[in-house]
Structure formats: structure tokens, C-alpha cells
């Protein structure tokens, strides 16, 4: 078999020490990594099991927010009373993904780091610049129905597949990251994932030797929260388009419109111009079209996935209409 070493980290220091080795990958729930190892898409020399280093707690922050430990399972997060009360968008997004069995295993940190499900990435006998830099992109001119229409490059048109991070992007959460030298940094979820550019192998800003310890949600804000996931079947399918929205209206005008989009790009998509366009305005189809125009002005389809451009527009209309109705 393809040999790999398995080591269990006992502490955070252990974990960062282990993953500072080039060929070592951290494993938590393993719901994505083990599949990829069986397919030999991922071939780590060592696995560092981080399940027992703590960081499974979900706790209030002094600022009134919520700190979700990197090892909290998706199920634990989705059913947490404060998540359900103050961040229902996050609970809905998590429950829109995968299956109960997978959510019982999948963790916050692992979910952020899950890899694309591009058919060509998943098949080692096909070209993929993400898996094998320089080998080409099989999806361009291939089967690309699920692929990106925003922010792609001529190297890669893969999408980020998750739901949880899309909600966290709308909520403007922060990712806490610790490195081997004890350094800590905090990265907004909105900046955690990368666009493919000329480095499509790079999914996110995590460096070798770094471990995610938590995701922190800011104090809850006023407004309604929605997560809309458009998919071919009603469960266990990746989003064609998804929208996470925190929307508030006062006196008939938008006062908040934090929107993030899944299924469109290599990362959860957030464009601050959309909030700028909506805030201070009264709801109308024309206004929604203006927002959609901003979202999609650089959108580029690849044959089969061109439908995502009008679909994103229509779904944005639906979500904003629903938000306005629920606010009324």
C-alpha cells in the first residue's frame, strides 16, 4: 500500500510541530481527506491526527460573539443554541451540506479546508493544475457544469464546494490560525480562501505548519438571515449557486445587506459593492438587478456552466425578496 505514518498530536504545539513537515497533513474528521487518499489525489507521507488537542468548544466571546473551536463538529455547531438563536444562517448552511453522518464527523477547520470536487481534480489519470501543477486543466473544454463563473483563471475553473464558509463569509467571521513558533494570526473568512490565479494548487492562505484553532463570529447584528442553496436534488448535492444573506431594513430601506455567494468561484464570493448599492435604497426589482449587475459584471462562463450567471441573478432576486417579506 501507499505507506504513511500516523501520529496523534496531544497538544497544539505537537500539532503545529508535526504539520510543519512538508509531507504531513493534519487530519480531523477525515471526511474529505480519506476519500482523496483512497483515490491517491492526496498522498501525505504523514498524517497528524489533531482530534485530541482540544479546540472543540463553542463559547461566547467577551464582545458578545461566538468562538467555534476548530474541532467542533458540524453537527455540534448546527445544533448549538446560540448558533440557532443568533446565527441561524450558519445552522442552515451547515444543514444544507453533506449528510447527517458526514456532519457528525466533519469539523469546523476541516470543512474550511475541504477541497474542490472538480471531476478532473478527483481523477489522477486526468490533467489538473491544482493537483499536478503544469499538467493542464481538464475542466476547461471538459465537463464543467459545476464550475466557476467568477474569479477563475486559465489555470483553473474549480469551485470551492462548501456551504459553511459561505455563511461565515456573510457573517464576516474571523479564522484563528496558530503557527509552530507560537505565532497567532487572525484572517477574515472573506480572505481565507484564494482565487486560483497562477497558483491553483493553493486553496487558502494556510501556510505549512499552521493550524486553524477557531472561527469567531462577531456579535450578532440586527436583520434577517437566509441561506439559499440551489441544487439539482434536494439533499446531498453541491450548490449550483448558494447565497448567504444578512439583511436588515428600516423605514422601507435596506440598512444592512451582507451577502456571500457559493458555487460561483474558487472561494465564497463576497463583493462589498453589493452592500453599498443596496444600503439606503428601497427594495425593487431594478435595485436587485443593479446588485446582480455588480456581482456578475466580470462573470465568465465555460459552456455548460453559463447558466450559473442568470441563475445567480434570479436567486439573488429570490433571496432579497424573501428577506424583504420576512422583514415586513
Amino acid at each position, binding site marked *: 500500500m501507499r505507506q504513511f505514518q500516523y501520529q496523534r498530536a496531544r497538544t497544539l504545539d505537537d500539532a503545529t510541530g508535526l504539520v510543519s513537515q512538508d509531507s504531513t497533513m493534519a487530519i480531523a474528521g477525515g471526511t474529505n481527506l480519506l476519500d482523496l487518499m*483512497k483515490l491517491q489525489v492526496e498522498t501525505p507521507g504523514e498524517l497528524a491526527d489533531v482530534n485530541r488537542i482540544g479546540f472543540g468548544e463553542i463559547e461566547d466571546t467577551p464582545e458578545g460573539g461566538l468562538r467555534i473551536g476548530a474541532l467542533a463538529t458540524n453537527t455540534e455547531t448546527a445544533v448549538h443554541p446560540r448558533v440557532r438563536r443568533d446565527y441561524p444562517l450558519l445552522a442552515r448552511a451547515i444543514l444544507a451540506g453533506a449528510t447527517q453522518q458526514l456532519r457528525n464527523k466533519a469539523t469546523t477547520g476541516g470543512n474550511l479546508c475541504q477541497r474542490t*470536487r472538480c471531476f*478532473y481534480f478527483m*481523477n489522477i489519470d*486526468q490533467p489538473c493544475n491544482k493537483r499536478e501543477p503544469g499538467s493542464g486543466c481538464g475542466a476547461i473544454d*471538459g465537463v464543467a457544469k459545476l464550475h466557476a463563473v467568477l474569479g477563475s483563471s486559465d489555470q483553473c475553473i474549480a469551485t470551492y464546494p462548501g456551504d459553511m464558509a459561505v455563511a461565515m463569509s456573510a457573517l464576516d467571521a474571523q479564522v484563528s490560525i496558530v503557527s509552530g513558533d507560537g505565532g497567532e494570526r487572525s484572517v477574515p473568512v472573506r480572505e481565507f480562501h484564494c482565487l486560483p490565479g497562477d497558483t491553483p494548487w493553493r486553496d487558502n492562505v494556510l501556510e505549512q505548519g499552521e493550524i486553524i484553532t477557531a472561527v469567531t463570529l462577531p456579535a450578532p447584528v440586527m436583520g434577517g438571515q437566509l441561506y439559499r442553496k440551489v441544487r*439539482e436534488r434536494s*439533499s446531498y448535492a453541491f450548490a449550483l449557486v448558494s447565497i448567504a444573506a444578512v439583511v436588515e431594513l428600516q423605514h422601507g430601506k435596506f440598512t444592512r445587506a451582507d451577502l456571500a455567494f457559493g458555487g460561483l468561484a474558487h472561494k465564497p464570493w463576497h463583493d462589498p459593492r453589493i452592500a453599498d448599492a443596496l444600503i439606503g435604497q428601497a427594495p425593487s426589482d431594478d435595485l436587485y438587478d443593479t446588485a446582480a449587475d455588480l456581482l456578475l459584471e466580470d462573470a465568465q462562463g465555460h459552456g455548460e456552466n453559463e*447558466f450559473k450567471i442568470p*441563475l445567480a441573478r434570479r436567486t439573488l432576486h429570490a433571496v432579497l425578496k424573501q428577506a424583504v417579506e420576512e422583514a415586513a
Partner: protein
Amino acid sequence: MSAHLKQDKPDTANRLDQMKQGTIGQPITRVEGLAKVTGTAPYAAEYPVEGCVEGVLATATITRGQVVSVDRDSVMDMPGVIAVIEDPRMTTRAAQGTANEAPQQSPRTVCYWGQPVALVVAETFEQARDAAKHLRVEYREESDAPVDPQVVDAEEQEDETVRQGDLARAMSAAENAVDVTYTTKGHASAAMEPHAAIAQWDGRQLTVHASLQMLNYNITELADALDMEEDQVRIISRFVGGGFGSKLGLSEETVAAAIAAMELSRPVRVVLSRQQVFQCIMRRSETTQRLQLAADGEGRLAGFGHKALVSNLPGESFAEPVLQSSHFLYAAENRELMLEVARIHRMTAGSVRAPGEAVGMPTLEGAMDILAERAGIDPVELRLRNIPEEDPEEGLPFSSHKLAECLRQGADAFGWDAGPRKPRMTREGEWWIGTGMASAARVHNVGEAKARVTIKPDGTGLVETDMTDIGTGTYTILAQIAGEMLGLDPAQILVDLGDTQHPRGSGSGGSWGAASTGSAVYVACQALREEIANRVGIEETALDLADGRVIGGQTLVDLLGGKELAREGHYEPGAIAEDYTASGFGAFFAEVRVNHFTGETRVNRMLGAFGFGRVLNHKTARSQCLGGITWSIGAALTEALEFDPRTGHLVNCDLAEYHVPVHRDVPDVDVIMVEERDPVASPLQAKGIGELGMCGGAAAIGNAVYNACGARLFDYPMTPDRVLAAMPD
């Protein structure tokens, strides 16, 4: 001793209804169900075999060409590797159902991407898998292998062609004409249990635990592949974790395991990965279909045209029989039917879940909906007006025909709002709501089958045949048939299946297992009854058996006097097949909601009414109907094989990316079984059930999509992108 029945004429004796045990038709729970849900029913790969080593198939990474060399040295030093098996007898495709001969054997000639080229054997599965990935194979690739059915010249299947009257004239003279072209995407045959085999060779006898649907054919196919005598080969398939056509014919892992076991003199297990099951077993062909309907002002058809293009590899005999029910479903004097095959280098196309009608009926019934709208007639009424008195092409009588009853009972139970219909009438929030209906039809097949039935000295029964139970309820219904005939509680009857040492059954496939092997059991039981009647000294027709005794007389135990009594039944379809057209019929009704913004379509409720002869077990029959309807939902909305346009390889090759319906996609489904007795179908008066539920149901959903939102789609499946593209503003 054996008894033989070749059915040359209708069986109007209807003996089952004269029996006294009262078990036939009862909704008995599947007898093997508990073992399956508790994990104690062993599937092919699960038999503990001492010293068993593991084989993994290495597969081609080119579309067409020759294997120049297989570099054994590239893997022989890897941990645990025992051998690289490269043998000209290894097969590169699964056999077509009922082929009865070895499938293609040319491992050095590559015809599709993902084709097996060698087997790597190692001590553990993980070692073998890694070595198979690393095996260096040198190819001489032939470029420009066609993989798109639209770019090659297609071959006409002349046997399928029908030209009666003048369709073109009928079309131009028609008051209401419909001329539309549909496409359907390919469907996967993959089951939950992947293909697997454990082969053992003792120097004389080859024993293979395999996951196959039709052992009676598979043993011949395996012996042929290996150039052995059938009496040297034994195949065991006691439990099969789903078939769906993928296990009809002998598949690559079974041959490879057998060759490796003989070469290495060690037991060898070969299990296909999920991706390999998808990529190198069987696909249902994609289709392009033109439907032409020419009707008068009342919607009565004068012309009927159905032309289909399907695809397969060069050299494959199978062509998706799209027109199967189109030949007889509706009357029309002027008829043109034609089937063409494009030869392309995608994986093998073969029988998958209701081959033919599964894709032919949804297009035909979609076109009928358009006709109903053009003619201003209720869609149910349109079907009723076009039911033929006899097979419109052959002039043969129908064996039985319950389409009208199914349409009426189904419409009633569903609450069908009769009358001409208008789309876009009901909106609830973001959702358009609509209803649609379609007819169901699926040809009835039977095959030769044998079974041995024994009454043991203790009065219990034993049924033995190499018939398989692929999850449909065969174990249970065979016990019920024998129980009814012999006056035994089915719980007192052991049904022993899936072993080629038993008499040869029909195998499971084409919905024919129950009627075929069930008839063999019936014939054996009839012979046993004659012997019992003889011992009692009465005519067999006067013999009433129940609860282990002659009613008002001796027990079977006493009659047997300490000796067992056995008879083999041999059932053969006879000349009757030439004298009648036999088919199951039915009707589907669906209510759907279509999201105005996203194009997502979900089924709110669905009903199927079916007539398929005698119902042998109301519970397993209903489950079969529910399964079929679930596939209808998949065919309508989600299922699509996607092939790379350059290499022709199947890209969505697992159950995460090939979308079958999930629980949430399947609403409350109602099933009405219109009981009937079909004396032609079999001496049980039963017809096939399993596939009928997917033969037309997708059109009921598609027609409901149109009724809901006004989007008339001509491409299955109706995914959100397609619904949005067709949705009026």
C-alpha cells in the same frame, strides 16, 4: 423426476386460485430481510476464505489503441505484490444480458477509457490498489476515436424498422400534428454493492463467489471465457446487493479472479472500486428521439412515428430498445419506427433498469401531452381514445390489457382534474404548482427455468434453483408459490438460491424472474401434487392441501412415511409468445412544484396504477413499484451520465456526483395494483413488475412541469438550468 411445461397456449386452469393455503398474494415481509439489515447476510466479497489474496484491476488511460507492454517490474518490488496477471482470456467488458458466451476478450486492444488491461494481485487490498495505480503500461494510441454519437454515421437496426402506410401524408393531413425531438442522457447501472468475486481453484474445480444476476447464463459465459467445461465451474451468488442490469452478464472482476486463482493456486478476491463499476460495467445509452403524432380533431391517431438514435461500442450487439412499447401502445394506421446505433468509444452500453421503455416512454408520453394540448383534450381521455383493440403492427391479440382501468382508477385516486388544461395557473409563493400524467408500458418477458421442490419427511419444504434474489423478494415469493401449491406455511419452506449446483432458474433481469422461475416452482409443485393425489387415491384436481395435510385427511408427514418426495420443474416459454403481445400497463400521475426563480423542480406527490397480472406478494410488489417510481423521478429530474468530450470517459463516476433521488426527493407515493389474471403471461397468471414503474413516469413529471410553469422541456433530465432556459418570462 422432472416435470416439463412448455407453454404453447393460455393457461386458463388458473390453479393457484383453487388452492387452499391462502398465502399467495399475502404481504409477507422478505424472509432474508432481517439477515440483510443486521449485516449477517454474506455478500460476494464477504465470505471468509483462508489465504485469500487481493486483486485490483489496472485500467486504461487512453480511449483507443493497443497495449504495447505491461511493465511488471514497475510494481513487482512494491510491498506485498504477488503477481501481475495479464492473460488473453481476461475480459474487457461485461457480457450483455443473456449473452451465454464470453464477452470481449482482447485486453491488449483498448476500446474505451477505463477498460481493464491487467490484474495486480497482492497480499492486501491496499497494496494491490497502490500497485495497480503504479503499474506502467505502454500504449500505442490511435487518435480521433469518436466519442460523440452525433458526429458519426449511425447504423440502422433493420429488425426494428417498421413502415406501414404513409406517415408523411398522415402528418400533412392531420388536424393536430406533433413533430418534436427529445434527448435523454445516459443512466448508470451501478448498485450499492460493487462487483466482487472470490475465486478458489482446487486443481479440478473452480468455485466463485460472485455478485451476478443470472447464474444460468453466467456459468456458461465463465466456462467459455476460461475455455473450461461447465461442470468444472461453480458460481455462488446467494445475496446480491442490487442489480439494475449491471450484473446481468459476466463481468471483468469474476474472470480476472478466476484466472488469477488458477495461476497462483491461491484464492483471489477482486472487488471493483465504485469508480470502476461506473466506468467499466454498463451504461444506458443516451438517446435522441423524434416523435411524430398525426391526429384528427378528436385526437385519434392516424400516424405515429418514433425514430431513435442510441450508441454503443463497435462490435456490441446491444442497442437500447427505445421503441419496444411504441410498437403496440397506441393505434395508428400509418407508422414509421426506426432505431439507429452510433458506434462510439464510450464504455459499453447495455441493459440498465427497464432498457428501452425507461427512455422511450418518457418521450412518447411527453409528445402525447403536447398533442392533448393542441387538440384541446384531457390527457387521460386522449390515451383512452387511442388504446388499440389489438397489436397495431402485428395484428396479435393482447394477452391482457389494463391500461384503461389503470388510467381511470389512477385518475380517480389522484383526484385528476379532467378537461383541457392550461399551464401557469397555480402559484404558491415562489413555486409554480402543476400536475401531469403519462401511460406506463413495459413488455412482458419470460425465460426457461428449472427448480427442484422437495417435501422433507418432517413435512417441511425445500426449493432449490440457481435463481438469484437481487433484493426484489424472490426468496419470499418462491416460498409463497410452493406454500400455496403444497399447503404449507411459507415459513416451513427453505428457499435455497444462487448456486449453480442447483437446477437452473431464469436469473433476475428484465422483470422476468418471478414469472419464469416461479413457474418452474409451480410445475414442480404440480408434479408433487399429482404424486400426493396418487397416494391418497384421488384426482389431483380434487386434492385440497392446507397447513401440512390433506384437508379432512392425512398429514403430509404420514403420507411420506419417512421418505422425502422431490420433483424438478422445468418451465419453457412456448409458441404462445408468437400468438400474443404481452405487456404490463399502467398510468402515472404527478404533482410537482417548480421554483420560479431557480428552476428547481420537486415532486409533491405521485401515484402509479399498474396492471401486471397476479400479484404474488402485495408488499414486495408494492416495493418494486415504489422503486420504479423513484427511478422515474431520477430519470425526470436528476440522473445524467456525463462524458468527457475529448476522451469519452465517464466523469461523474460515483454516487455523490451521479444524482439518484435522495429520500427528500421522493414524496408520498401511492401505488394501485389493478389485479388481473393473465393466462398467457405464465401459468401463475403473473407478469413482470420490477421495471414498469420507471416506464413513463418521467413524462408525468415533465408534463407536470409544463402544467406548473409553462416550460416545455425536450431534454431529460430536467435540471434547473434547463428548466430556467425554457421558462417563459
